[in-house]
């Protein structure tokens, strides 16, 4: 397990200077495959089953997004896609929301709303493919190994915490919370992943690694729907990766924990 952890955690930090200096760059895509590379380095490669029906898990995260929106509703009236896009762009570009040109906001909203149905198959394929690199390591390799000692729920929580910490290099570059070198992003996202993790384990036990990858891909693909309703202000709170999104995982993970604890421990 040591070599797995060394490669999975070491590669993103090795690529950190490249990701910092070369913007835009494709290195974050390689980071997503660090856990899979870790499994190979550990010498414990396995061949997952490829079943088309497991891709249905891609749609499950819609429930999470719906709960996140419901969690936000008592505190904020939906502001609509323009407000969400304007604040997202402002955060991404580092300018005040009023400085974002209307043309750009309209373009982003129109492109996303109109193209979304057309791009759904592409989103399924691309997001599942990239998330596979992570899920092959976190769910397919590490979770069952830890579950032998800790049980599925304990393993889920430990893997969730490691998985959240693993994101530190990209979080420090502004991923999810739109602010470079904002250290609270690391504990925030570690909490997020820890709370989400039992649901991922449940999906893994039900659909295998490919299903978990589809589920993870669905999370990445659908999280943005939240911004069609609510702007990420402040990003640590009203954001799928913020406390609203973390809270939304809670009921799903509670249900998942009750289910996975009944599953037999791996031999």
């Amino acid at each position, binding site marked *: 397990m040591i070599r797995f952890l060394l490669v999975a955690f070491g590669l993103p930090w090795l690529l950190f200077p490249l990701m910092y200096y070369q913007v835009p760059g494709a290195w974050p*895509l390689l980071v997503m495959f660090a856990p899979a590379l870790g499994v190979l380095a550990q010498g414990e490669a396995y*061949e997952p089953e490829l079943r088309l029906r497991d891709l249905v898990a891609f749609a499950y995260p819609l429930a999470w997004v719906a709960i996140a929106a419901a969690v936000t509703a008592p505190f904020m009236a939906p502001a609509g896609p323009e407000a969400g896009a304007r604040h997202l762009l402002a955060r991404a570009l*580092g*300018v005040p929301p009023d400085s974002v*040109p209307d*043309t*750009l906001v309209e*373009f982003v909203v129109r492109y996303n709303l109109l193209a979304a149905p057309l791009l759904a198959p592409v989103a399924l394929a691309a997001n599942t493919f990239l998330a596979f690199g992570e899920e092959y390591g976190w769910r397919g390799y590490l979770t069952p190994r830890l579950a032998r000692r800790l049980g599925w729920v304990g393993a889920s929580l430990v893997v969730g915490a490691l998985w959240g910490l693993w994101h530190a290099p990209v979080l420090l570059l502004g991923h999810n919370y739109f602010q470079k070198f904002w250290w609270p992003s690391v504990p925030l996202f570690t909490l997020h992943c820890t709370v989400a993790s039992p649901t991922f384990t449940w999906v893994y036990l039900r659909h295998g690694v490919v299903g978990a990858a589809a589920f993870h891909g669905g999370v990445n693909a659908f999280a943005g729907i939240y911004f069609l309703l609510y702007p990420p202000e402040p990003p640590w709170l009203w954001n799928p990766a913020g406390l609203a999104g973390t809270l939304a995982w809670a009921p799903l993970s509670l249900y998942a924990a009750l289910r996975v604890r009944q599953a037999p421990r791996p031999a």
Partner: protein
Amino acid sequence: MYEFWVSRWELLAADAPLLASALAAAAVIIAVLYAIFRIRWRKVLTPPRIALVAGTIALAIFLIYLTAPERMGFAVGGGRLAVYVGWWGAPYGREYGLSDCALEWVNASSAHVMRIGYGGARAAVGWLMVSGPGVKAEGYGIFVRGAEWILIARCPDGTYVLGAPGLSPETARD
């Protein structure tokens, strides 16, 4: 008189590190998948075929740059403004008398340039939007990294956003 010209191949060369990172990432990912699924995919993903796929991707990227004109740029000064961009909707071959256009100069360090169009390591081309303290303008044009000034030219049939190293109100006046 100030003029700036850049060829599509210079833009491609400037983007080479980005393209190389994408190809390197793709190569590693393919190698990982090859190692994981080696039993079933051994006959499918042969090294020549992997090279063919990588070559096709590289060719596709190359072809994207072929949609740009061989040289693009602009010239301003001597009472004339000439815009020769011809990519991402920006016009090619428009010339104006400077007296026909309302010129506004924006210091690039105090403004943000956003774009709908091409954005590479060296330049942004297409519909450019400039925003900063007291300025909000948009139009077709080209903005090159290292520019100190942005020229917003409101001409009879369109607004242009132009910026490149060395461009300044002084250099454009001569």
